[in-house]
């Protein structure tokens, strides 16, 4: 707990106020330090049974040991947490939060920390010896059955033998998986227990980050994963030598696609509910994830004027998306729409741009011309923001970065040095292939000219950066919006009196997955450009941002929509 000496009386005698802050019992000095609510009471007090139990049955060949799939995942999570720590996340994440979440998961899914581990009671299905000739062709019927996860067990061959105890399981399934319970793991009936997958490790991480309100959004987390700063692809190469990975383990631990935002996010919500977690720590105005804060970041990255922040804050306030209760995650509550902080903030900016510039491929350019005119007569020293200039600069930078990203996608390296083989019989073939790949890479690498793969660039929170020190005027942060605003009753308001809604009616997200259906051709090019910009920054499809924009607009123009649903979509503000 808190062990510092009191600033006033130097005693170490702390208590907690109602508000959760530490106060000195001796002199009643209240500190600003709040106790981090690390709720461990989501764990039930069951008899704890550790996963690794004393003596391990050493395998005769290769010196491998018995290991369970969940141990593998535990290792993965540990590695990921360490990487996050290296990125600056507090150590509490690894040592307490993630750890406890994981233990809770194991308990709830009955893989450990409970009376009986799941494997014991489930009958293991294995194919009898004569047909277990696992060679390099992975499409033998028995394996194919497991691989394709067929529902009906009646598909199995009739001469199956049923193993009823763990030891037998390990013997017969060791041909299919290095782990003890690899084949069990892939059986479909585990669904109710929220079977662990590689993408889910990221859900765990994100959940822990969210609990601690760390300044990393989900899109950033996933970007770090893709850039290789967080172990995910080929994480198994960090498994100790003794943990042999083969057979069905490959299907569990090998990843061949980039993690998908939606999937990781949804799983995180499922997980939070599954673990019966209480309301997460409050997301308040001073949190990084609060839209006001995130908007600052994104405005900077999008090279937009700082002054726009006033407008984003106004929108946030008006529609109540800055409220603690709106932003804070309450697991299991199905009635509220879950907040995607990064997408929300980006969408707020888009709405603000629409409010000020209309973005109908027409008005924004007129305004820009006006601002340009005003700039000529501008004696104030600071420049007025011109949409056209901004568009040219940002579009150019975006195109360059997009092109780089496209090439990176084509050059993405999926395999690592540690080779994987489905079975021992497969091994020599796999190793030969690896050798050939390495040879070919060397041979053609020499012919590539001086282009050598640079070291992994260090992780950066900002993908686009603009410096005010550049004399070429490519930084718009300090530009003023006065060029496009007018004075009315002593207040500065937007000159633009109009607004167009992205959609008049929102879809039912639960039915069709989206609030609206975005097609580039249906919308103005300026709007598409802005979506594209944030789509690049967040590494998600433009349609997701578009959904959030629709949601915000409907909140913003709620009353007017209610009355004017029948008429055209252009409204007066």
């Amino acid at each position, binding site marked *: 707990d808190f062990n510092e000496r009191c600033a006033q009386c130097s005693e170490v005698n702390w208590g907690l106020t109602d508000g959760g802050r530490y106060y000195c019992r001796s002199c009643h000095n209240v500190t600003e330090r709040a106790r981090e609510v690390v709720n461990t009471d989501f764990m039930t007090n069951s008899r704890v049974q550790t996963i690794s139990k004393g003596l391990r049955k050493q395998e005769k060949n290769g010196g491998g040991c018995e290991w369970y799939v969940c141990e593998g995942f535990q290792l993965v999570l540990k590695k990921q947490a360490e990487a996050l720590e290296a990125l600056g996340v507090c150590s509490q994440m690894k040592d307490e939060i993630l750890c406890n979440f994981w233990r809770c998961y194991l308990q709830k899914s009955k893989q450990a920390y409970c009376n009986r581990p799941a494997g014991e009671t489930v009958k293991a299905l294995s194919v009898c010896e004569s047909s277990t000739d696992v060679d390099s062709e992975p499409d033998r019927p028995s394996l194919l059955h497991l691989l394709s996860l067929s529902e009906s067990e009646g598909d199995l061959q009739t001469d199956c033998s049923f193993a009823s105890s763990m030891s037998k399981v390990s013997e017969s399934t060791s041909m299919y998986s290095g782990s003890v319970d690899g084949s069990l793991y892939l059986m479909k009936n585990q669904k109710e227990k929220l079977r662990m997958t590689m993408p889910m490790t990221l859900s765990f991480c994100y959940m822990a980050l969210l609990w601690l309100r760390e300044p990393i959004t989900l899109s950033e987390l996933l970007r770090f994963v893709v850039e290789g700063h967080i172990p995910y692809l080929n994480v198994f190469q960090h498994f100790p030598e003794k943990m042999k990975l083969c057979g069905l383990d490959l299907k569990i631990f090998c990843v061949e696609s*980039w993690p998908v935002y939606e999937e990781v996010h949804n799983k995180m919500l499922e997980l939070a509910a599954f673990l019966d977690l209480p309301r997460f720590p409050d997301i308040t105005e001073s949190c990084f994830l609060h839209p006001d804060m995130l908007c600052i970041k994104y405005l900077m990255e999008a090279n937009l004027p700082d002054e726009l922040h006033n407008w984003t804050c106004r929108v946030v306030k008006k529609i109540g998306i800055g409220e603690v209760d709106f932003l804070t995650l309450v697991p299991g509550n199905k009635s509220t729409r879950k907040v995607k902080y990064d997408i929300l903030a980006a969408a707020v900016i888009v709405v603000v741009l629409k409010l000020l510039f209309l973005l109908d491929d027409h008005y924004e350019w007129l305004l820009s011309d006006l601002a340009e005119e005003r700039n000529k007569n501008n004696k104030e020293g600071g420049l007025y923001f011109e949409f056209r200039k901004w568009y040219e600069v940002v579009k150019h930078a975006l195109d360059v970065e997009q092109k780089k990203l496209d090439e990176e996608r084509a050059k993405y390296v*999926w395999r690592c040095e540690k080779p994987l083989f489905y079975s021992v019989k497969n091994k020599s073939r796999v190793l030969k292939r690896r050798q050939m790949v390495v040879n070919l890479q060397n041979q053609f690498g020499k012919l590539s000219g001086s282009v050598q793969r640079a070291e992994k660039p260090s992780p950066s929170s900002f993908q686009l950066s603009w410096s005010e020190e550049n004399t070429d005027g490519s930084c718009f942060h300090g530009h003023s919006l006065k060029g496009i605003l007018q004075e009315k009753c002593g207040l500065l308001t937007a000159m633009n009196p109009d607004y167009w809604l992205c959609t008049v009616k929102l879809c039912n997200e639960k039915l069709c997955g989206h609030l609206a259906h975005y097609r580039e051709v249906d919308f103005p090019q300026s709007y598409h450009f802005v979506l594209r910009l944030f*789509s690049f920054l967040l590494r998600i499809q433009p349609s997701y941002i578009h959904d959030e924009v629709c949601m915000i607009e409907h909140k913003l123009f709620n009353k007017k929509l209610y009355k004017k649903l029948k008429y055209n979509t252009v409204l007066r503000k």
Partner: protein
Amino acid sequence: SSYEHKLNFRRSKEACLSYIQDAMLQKQWKRAAEFLTFYVESLEKDYSREQIGPSEMIWRIGTEILCHHSRSSMKEFNCFMEQMKTLGVKRYLKVCLEHVFHLLCNGQIDEAYQNLSLAESWRFGEQTAIQNKEMKLIQAYRGLLDYYNWSKQKNILLEHGLDGFADLSVEQEMHSCFRKAVMNLKEIIKTPGVWDLFVKCYVDLLEFYGDHNEARQVLNEYAYNSRFPANPNAHVYLYQFLKRQGESKKSLISALKILHDIVPSHELMIDFNTMLQKSKKRKKRRLGLEVIFAALDYAGWKENVKAWSCLARQVKQIVISEKYLDWIKEEWSSRKDWWPAFHFSRYLAKRNWQENESLSYEKALVAGILLGKDCKYFKYVSHQGCKAQVKRFRMLKKFVNRHNLVCLRISG
């Protein structure tokens, strides 16, 4: 598309391939090599369901890059090919063959021979039977190189022969090459296909050793067996052989007949027409006319003096005899709409006269007969010719004038 932020292994490699393709199309070999290094890891994934798997892609792309890249060498190329051979057993012989072709193109005959011998001795279960077509080709090309060696030995022998030295070892070597070559070449030409090179070499060998019957049989088979694809060269080879053998005009003509049907613009049509013109048989003469007209339908013959002189001679002869004018009429009826612009324009008249007097002479004769003395071509050329006081043009003018009525009957 670039807005796709999802990515999996397959899509990533597809994208990689399209970058390679672009680079290759723009001859940016360094860039292609660069992307290829990222593509090769797809060898470690199972693509057995795809039509063209990564191993074949890498073989083909790698070959192209190594052929064109400025810094690659034959040594590197050979090393690469050896790796490719181990990569796909189903393609082993094909890769061997292509490797051999590259070696041959780079003048490395001995290495090519070694590779062929090695490939010939390859056995791999049922693959050997499946790849037997490629095996046949390998044997055939080895036979070809045996022929090449034989040819070298033969030339050495001939040179020494002149000096009076008889080199026994060379002779033995030569015969040994002959035997090897014959064995392999004979095999391949049994299979229907286009085997020009092999046939030529084989026939050459047979002729040298005096086995004319076999040679004749082979050539006949090659030309007339309907299982073989229609091949003009087959007839050319047969014709040339028969000519060498001093065969009768009759058999020569019959050899060229099909060639005329397949390739009316073939250069041998001149020989054909010449033989036919001289024939006593009316039908043959008629055919001759058809042949020469058909040849001159082609742009490539427009300025061929020999061809025009053949035609000129024949139509002149017909006009003088006043017999068989309808032959000309028949030939001319389908041509009178376009030959005047094609061959006998005023522009061409000028050009031909300037560039090639003989050409213009022959053409003028034909024009004068087919189109009459008032046609542009004839008028211009004959006028120029007479102005230049070239005797034959005066004769020409007289001739055409004299036979003008006949000519009118033709053009009418």
